[in-house]
Every structure is written in C-alpha cells, then in structure tokens.
C-alpha cells in the first residue's frame, strides 16, 4: 500500500553515468575479465572461469531473469506484482504435469497459458475491482502455493510421484554448438592468460545448451524492442509514468494494464517452467524458493531496464552457482570485487568526486581485510547476497534510480 505523497525530496534520478554507451559497457566488461584472469592466475583458483560455472550460472539465471522480466512488464505499466512467486509456482506445477503427460514442449505451453491466466486474474483484482496491489499479490501467492500442494496430492501419487514431487519429466534435448564449442574448449585447455579464461566462460555457454534457454534469452531484446520501438510499449511506459497524461490523450490505461499484468504472469510462469523442466526434471515443492521475490529485486537492480534485469539475474545467478563451487572461488571473487572497488576509487578521486571515491576505497579495504582474515565465506551469506545487494542499492542509490513514476500507486480512471 503506498502512502499518498513523497515524504522526501527526490531529485530527478539519472542512471549512473557509467553505463552511458554500449562501447563503454563492453570496455568495462573487458576490464572486468582482465582483472578476473589476473586473480585466477595469481591464486590458481581457476574455477570461476570454468565452463561448469558459466553453465551453472546460466541455468540459475534464467528463472530469475524470467521473474525479473515479469516484474518489469508489470511495473513499467504501473503495477508492482507481489504475486510473482505464486505465478512462478503455477509455472512449475503446470509445466511438470503437462510435461509429464504430453512432453516438455507442451509443459512450457501449458505454463505459459496458465501463467497468462493467473496474471489476468491479478489484473482483474487490481484494475477492475480496485483492490490494493500488494494484497492481491499476497492472495495469489497463497492460493497458488496451496493449490499446487493440493493438486499435487491429487494427481501425483497415482502415477509415481508423491504429494511433494511430481513424476519425472522427459527433459529437453540439448545440443552443443558445433565447430565453435570444440575450438573454445581447446583454447581453454591451453591456459593462455586472459584468452583462455574468456574461452572457458564462452565454452560453458556453448555446450549442452537447450533451445529453450536461447528462446527465453531472446525475450530480453524482445522486451527492449517492444518497450522502446512499438506503439504498445510506448503506451505501456506512459501507463506507469503518468497514466493521467496517457488517459488525456485517449489511451485506455486499464486495457494496457490488463495486458501487461497478464504477460507478467506468463513470464514468471515460464521461469517456473524452466525450473521444472530444464534446470531439473521434476516439480518439487518449494522449488521456487523465493525466486519470484528476487525477480522484483533484479528489476530494481536493473533500474527497470531489460538489459539491467538481465545483468542482475546473471549476477545473482552467478552467486547462486557459486554456492556449489569451491570456496576458493568465492575468495577470488572477493578479490576481484576489491580490485574493481580500488579502480573505481582511483577513478572517482581523479575526478574529484571524493564521497564515492572514499566509499569505494573503503570497500576495497574491506575486501582486502576479508581476504586476509577470513577463510571461508559462510554459505548463508552467499545465498543471501542478491537480497543484500538490492538493499544496498536501495539505500544508497535510491536517488539515482528511475522507477516508473506511478508504479504501485492506485489509479482510477478520471482522477486528476
């Protein structure tokens, strides 16, 4: 529930200057890899850039990405979708069941359809009946969780599952990209500084890939395209920024929100389907484990842009993947982060921006201290890193983020 007015002065947020152009972004990523390669050769912990890690990262990232895109679609249209977790559960269940019955492809189709329906339901509650968005989301989470448990008890036991696990589903065929993958593999094996690290990562992304992964990844540029190139996208953005303005120009904001929220449900649901069909091959109770909420976090982290959501889900997927990796990798990562902080600190100081310079300097020192004193990062902290990162972003960068101006605020047609 949102209070009526802003309680503080919010300067018009400008997305961090760092991310101005594609050229800059590429340069920064290259720099990051350079530092990574450096650290790996110094510490001998080569796990970070191994194909296993990048493959796992992708697998962990996709569900987060879908939840994030789901959150993005809804929020861009002005609605904060708290029910993403429930819609994801809908996806896991329907994908597993229909996948069991008719094969994994039908599983995805079913998840999409039911996800769309759950989104539509949320839309009716919030747009038509005018219920508070958070309450509606809450109700949907409850019903979805309960419904999934109930239906599991009804359908699964007779066919070889039990009330918490579905019968196993055939998985999607995967393939390894011909020509390129083997080349990458051999480059990786040669251990050339920087090139091999890069090759290792890319190798992980090119072997045993499933078409579904690629299809879902394509949704990122597709969303971008829709938002900034299509008529619908423009109107949707305005529904979230200034619905009164849109309405005054003859746009049916209600209809747009219906569509956007339905799509939001569908996307979250597809994320769940991925969890059940690709990341594993069963439905398991509690499978979503709060990913729907992390999806909301990636939206914030990504400053409400599809590219940002993608970056956020990769980052969070990466930390998720790290959990099952060697602990030295985590340490190396801290070192990388520390070096990045150091570079930033120098950069800021040169530009006389003392406050960010000081803060990043302090972070670099913190990373150094952790590296020296701590042996192992506790598992729990690694798991909760996405949440923590989001909180930090919210605390320190809230002024610079650019959320859709009216997201979360109730809107009634005809209000001024």
């Amino acid at each position, binding site marked *: *529930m*949102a*209070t*009526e*007015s*802003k*309680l*503080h002065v*919010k300067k018009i947020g400008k997305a961090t200057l760092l991310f101005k152009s594609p050229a800059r972004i590429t340069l920064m990523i290259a720099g990051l890899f350079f530092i990574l390669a450096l650290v790996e050769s110094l510490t001998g912990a080569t796990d970070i850039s191994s194909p296993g890690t990048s493959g796992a990262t992708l697998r962990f990232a996709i569900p987060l990405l879908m939840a994030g895109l789901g959150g993005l679609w809804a929020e861009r249209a002005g609605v*904060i979708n*708290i029910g993403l977790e429930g819609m994801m559960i809908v996806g896991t269940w329907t994908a597993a069941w229909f996948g069991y019955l008719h094969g994994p492809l039908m599983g995805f189709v079913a998840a999409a359809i039911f996800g769309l329906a759950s989104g539509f339901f949320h839309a009716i*509650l919030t747009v038509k*009946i*005018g*219920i*508070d968005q*958070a*309450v*509606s989301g*809450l*109700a949907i*989470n*409850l*019903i*979805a*969780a*309960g*419904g999934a*448990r*109930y239906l*599991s*008890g*009804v359908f699964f036991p007779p066919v070889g599952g039990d*009330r918490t696990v579905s019968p196993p589903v055939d998985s999607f065929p995967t393939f390894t990209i011909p020509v390129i993958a083997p080349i990458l593999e051999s480059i990786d094996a040669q251990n050339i500084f920087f090139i091999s690290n890069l090759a290792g990562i890319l190798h992980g992304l090119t072997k045993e890939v499933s078409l579904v992964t690629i299809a879902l990844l394509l949704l990122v540029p597709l969303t971008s395209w829709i938002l900034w190139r299509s008529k619908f996208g423009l109107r949707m953005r305005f529904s979230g920024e200034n619905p009164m303005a849109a309405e005054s120009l003859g746009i049916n904001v209600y209809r747009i929100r219906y569509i956007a929220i339905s799509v939001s449900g569908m996307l979250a649901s597809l994320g769940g389907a991925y969890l059940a069909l690709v990341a594993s091959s069963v439905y398991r109770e509690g499978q979503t484990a*709060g990913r729907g*909420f992390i999806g*909301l*976090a990636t939206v*914030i982290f990504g400053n409400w842009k599809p590219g940002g959501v993608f970056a956020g889900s990769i980052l969070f997927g990466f930390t998720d993947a790290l959990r099952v990796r060697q602990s030295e990798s985590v340490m190396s990562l801290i070192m990388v982060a520390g070096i990045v902080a150091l570079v930033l600190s120098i950069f800021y100081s040169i530009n006389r921006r003392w406050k960010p310079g000081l803060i990043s300097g302090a972070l670099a020192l913190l990373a150094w201290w952790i590296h020296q004193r701590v042996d192992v990062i*506790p598992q*729990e*902290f690694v*798991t*909760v890193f996405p*949440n*923590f990162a*989001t*909180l930090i972003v*919210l*605390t320190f960068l*809230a*002024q610079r983020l650019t959320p859709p101006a009216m997201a*979360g605020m109730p809107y009634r047609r005809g209000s001024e």
Partner: protein
Amino acid sequence: MKKVRIFWGTVAPLAAVVSSLLLVSVILILRGANPIDIFQVMISYGFDPRNLVSELNQTVSYYLAGVAAAIGFKMLLFNIGIDGQYRMGAFFGAVVGAAVSLPPVLHVLLIVITAMLAGGLWAAIAGYLKVRRGVSEVISNIMLNFIAAAIIAFLLGEDLLGILPEGSQNVQTKPIPLSGQMPTFKMFNGEIYSFIFVAIFVGIAYWIMLNKTVFGFNLRATGLSFRAARSSGVNAPGMIFITTVLSGAIAGLVGLGTLLSDTHSYSMAFPSGFAFTGLSLALLGRNHPVGIFFAAFLWSFLERAAPVLEYEGVPPEIVIVMQGTIVLSIVIAYEVVARINLGQQQRAVGKANVELVKESK
C-alpha cells in the same frame, strides 16, 4: 448508526468464509466426496479437547502476527517483514535468555523486552528506508526477511551460538534455564501456554492505544489522510517510522509462546510464513482485536483439522486453498461493503435535510 456499522462489519468476513466454504464444497463434490460429511469430521476432530489445546497454542502466535500486521495496516503499511522480525525476536530472545540468570519474573521480562527490541530494530531498517528514501516497505522487508534468516542460520552454526544436543538433528540455541520459562496451565486435558495472557494483553493494549490515546489517534489519522494529519500538527513521517518499529516489536513476540513454554530454545525448526498469515488475519479480522482472535483461531483450527481429511481420501492441502480463497473473498467483500455503506450513509444525510447551497466556483 452504530448498529449499522457492526452489522456491516461482520457481514464481510462472514460472507468471505461462506463463499470459501462453497468453493471448497464444489471441489469436494467434484472428487466424489460429501462436503457435509467432511466438514462434520473436521469440526468434531477440531473441537476434540486434545486438538483444541494445540490450536489455542497456535492461536497465540498467529494472533500476535495478526496484531502486528494490523498496526501496520492502520498506517497503510504492508508489513510483510513480520517473518524476519519474528525470527530476530525469537532468536535473540532465546540467546539472551540462555545467557543470563535472573529471578524468574525478571528473567522472562528480559526475554520479552529483548525480543521486542530485536524485532523493532529490524523493522526500523525498513522504516528508515521508507521515510528517508521513499523505498517501498514491501520490497525492503522482503529482502530483510531473507537476510534475517541468513544471519540467524549463520549464527546458529555450531561454533557460534548454536549447540547440537544429544539425539537431535536440529541445531538450537542454548536452553533457557527454569527461571526464564513460562508455565503452562491445564485446560481441556492439555497444556496451554500462559503466554496466551500476554497475547490477549497485547490485543487489548493495541485496541486501547489505537482508540483511546492521542498517539493512536495520530496514527489512525496519518493512515486516513497524510495531509490532514500533517496540517493538524502530527509529525507524519515520524509516525510512519514509529509505527513500523511498533509493528516489528509486536512481531518479535510471535515466537515467544512456543519459546517460553515449550522448546526453551530457538532452532531452525521454528516455523515460517507468519507474514502471510498475519496479514491475512488482520484483513480477515478487520484490524479489530476480537476479529483477529477469531480469525487466528479459525486458521489454527483449519490447519489442525487438515490431516484428518486424509482418512477421508481428501488431500489435506485443500485447507490452504480454503485459506487463500478466504483472503481473496474478504478483500473483494470489503470493497463492495465499503461502497454500500458509504452510499447508505449519504442517503441518510440527504434524507435529513434539503439544502440550498451557494457555491462560489
């Protein structure tokens, strides 16, 4: 007027429960079960004294979660952070309780105060972010819930604050000595947590605070109209922060019934889901202490009676569906009822007079 309000006040929750029962009946019929039989079985099982006892004990926690949520709702705050706040309260209450030795009443008091402080401080983070940075308390609380669980899980690691007793699979905090325990009392052939009296006291205090004190007035006013409250002299942003902390402090008490009278230590086995439950109960009980109590009892009853459904061939999870649909119907019902109520009042006012109005615009 007052009679009318009470009437409408109870119609909505009743309508919600009834419509949920209807929906479930339909589902049962589709499975070939007889709804009447099923409900009878549930009721007789649920009201069996042995089960009543555990239901009442469960009601203690649910009730406190509901009151915590209600405090938030009065300020239009959606305190989904109850999960994290409850854990912080229970955990630190357990740790501090086990670390000291004080005369009995003081010892318990210390635990209670620690729990409230822990929950309140944890909630203050979200409150600060909301008031100072305009961050939605929903998002920050969701993040804080996960972080709280992680911190506690970490602290429970065997070398730190956790111990692994003989024959147990669960790591837990050191047990609280006798002086820090609360007795149970016999009723219905079972043991009921005496913390239930604290819970009832909290409910009464909540109602008195809200309706009889200036502070409560200011709280409700800020929730009803931020601008009007501000114009009347209320420090509105301050109210929002204090309310968040207060809600968190109450949430910190949620786990104490179990902690003080039953387990005497905190472990990862402590249940979750209190945020959703608390919010649902506050909605169902219309933020009224008596309403929340009945709602809390209803919830405990449903959950306790669920397993018996298995013997009748019905998956017990149908109870969760019931809970979900109750929440949904409640919210829809309120919208409808609120509009009808307002319409009625306006008509009453219109009937009472005919007026000539000169408006200058």
